[in-house]
């Protein structure tokens, strides 16, 4: 029987139709999945079971796949270290001599900083714990920039935790499972990070667009940024701590201000996840609400205003049980101006004698005045005044 006489010739139209129907069904499934997916939010439940399961499978397989690459890089690194030991030694010696001069400055600044803090009764965030992980997968397309890291909920990693390498901020955690976390990079199109410019203290939003240099949006002021300005996280919104180095501002080819990320100079595979919690989350709110209001006294106007104002100067002990009313502090930004202003306020308040006033009392300044009755919040009390951002 010739092929053209075959009964299978009759199958052509049904097969075309069934292929078209299959295509439409697959498209409907794809579109449904697309509009039910929410990956840009930081809500834990929004990440979804599918993604969690997917990450759970992808991470170990990626780890196996990348193992030969890691071994190769280790071998190449070992050979380079052997052959370039002399030049590396010379470079490190030069770096050490510079670091020694900075150490003296740092000690002096630390001492000044501690005195200011003691004077103002200033509280800083508790030190942030961190865990190190290995990136096992890295996507770098125009529609998604993320990494899979081989640590997860077993190390107390949570959605929203900031991620950095030895040089600066890399991104934040958007999904966590047992043994794996997905990190949304700063360059992702959905990434929005509140930042500040170190020189002018002006705020901006770092917006990723899929390229290597995210842009600075919503800048305020006539001339808030100049070439090579240092960009830090601002801590606004409480998602990220303040003061993490992000990068340097540059003018892009499109005329917009962009940021060359400091993290790009560091290792691509090893990252540190900061187990950061906003200080407002540490306060024991129910306990604060339970406390009774202070009883009014006969000499209320003068005593109420004078006693709390005098407390920070009289009791500079950082371990004293005081509610966490002070703001966060970053190590890299010049605090001289704000500290000086606060110091001036505090000094003026302290040196001013508390005199009874028959008229309405002046309202108590918001900072650094403590509440009239000290409230002990053990979680919020910092063990020391050490910097809260690990570098």
């Amino acid at each position, binding site marked *: 029987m010739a092929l053209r006489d075959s009964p299978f010739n009759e199958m052509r139209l049904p097969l075309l139709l*069934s292929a078209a129907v*299959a295509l439409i069904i697959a498209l409907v499934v*794809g579109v449904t999945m697309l*509009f039910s997916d929410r990956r840009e939010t930081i809500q834990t439940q929004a990440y979804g079971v599918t993604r969690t399961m997917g990450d759970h499978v992808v991470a170990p397989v990626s780890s196996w796949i990348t193992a030969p*690459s890691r071994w190769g890089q280790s071998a190449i690194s070992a050979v380079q270290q052997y052959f370039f030991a002399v030049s590396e030694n010379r470079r490190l010696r030069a770096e050490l001599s510079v670091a020694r001069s900075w150490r003296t400055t740092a000690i002096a600044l630390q001492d000044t900083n501690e005195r200011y803090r003691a004077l103002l009764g200033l509280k800083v965030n508790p030190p942030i714990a961190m865990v190190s992980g290995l990136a096992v997968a890295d*996507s770098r*397309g125009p529609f998604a920039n993320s990494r899979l890291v081989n640590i997860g909920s077993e190390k107390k990693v949570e959605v929203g935790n900031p991620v950095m390498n030895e040089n600066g901020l890399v991104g934040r955690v958007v999904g966590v499972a047992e043994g794996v976390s997905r990190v949304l990079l700063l360059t992702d199109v959905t990434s929005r990070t509140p930042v500040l410019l170190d020189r002018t203290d002006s705020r901006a939003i770092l917006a990723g667009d*899929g390229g290597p240099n995210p842009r600075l949006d919503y800048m305020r002021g006539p001339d808030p940024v100049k070439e090579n300005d240092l960009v830090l996280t601002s801590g606004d919104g409480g998602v990220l701590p303040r003061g993490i180095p992000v990068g340097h501002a540059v003018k892009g080819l499109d005329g917009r201000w962009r940021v060359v990320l400091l993290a790009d100079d560091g290792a691509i*595979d090893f990252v540190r996840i900061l187990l950061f919690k906003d200080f407002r989350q540490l306060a024991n709110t129910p306990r604060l609400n339970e406390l009774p209001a202070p009883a009014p006294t006969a000499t209320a106007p003068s005593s109420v205003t004078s006693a709390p104002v005098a407390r920070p100067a009289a009791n500079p002990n950082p371990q004293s049980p005081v509610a966490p009313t002070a703001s966060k502090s970053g190590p890299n930004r010049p605090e001289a101006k704000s500290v000086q202003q606060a110091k001036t306020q505090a000094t003026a308040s302290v040196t001013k004698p508390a005199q009874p006033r028959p008229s309405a009392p002046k309202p108590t300044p918001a900072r650094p005045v403590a509440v009239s009755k000290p409230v002990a919040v053990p979680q919020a009390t910092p063990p020391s005044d050490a910097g809260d951002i690990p570098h």
Partner: protein
Amino acid sequence: MTLAQPLTPVRWILIPALQVIMTTWLFTMPYRVFGFQPPEPVFAMVTAFAWAVIRPSVLAPFCLLLMGIGMDLIWGSPLGLWAVSLLVSYGAVLLVRNILIGQQLPILWLAFGVACALAELLGVLITQVVSHVTPRALGVISQWGVTIAVYPWAHRLIERFDDADVRFR
């Protein structure tokens, strides 16, 4: 030129799909070459184009759906973005399949480039709708460029199987 192969689903759908997924996975390795990150081609466009040219199939759309979801899970893009992009490109190539059959390499390569551009454009549109942002044009164009560079893989697949089913010549 390779001889035509018998058209069994394992040979023309399953094995190429696995090869594409493995290659995509390999390219997610975190490494830099001379300080630059390597490109990220959409290898699945090879199968989306070649399967449509070879013959219509019921299995191919579902396989592309699974591959797209797998790519979204590996890359962390919105779930369904690449599934929809691949399927629409596949459907578009299927529509003009009668024109493409029997064409020479440059014409097919050009058609592959158009199909890839369609997929990238859909990716941009979906990102605009879902995330309310527009991806950087340079990133999209560079991904399109490196994707059309892998066309020889698709051409090899077409040459192996385009004569296998005489009903769809």
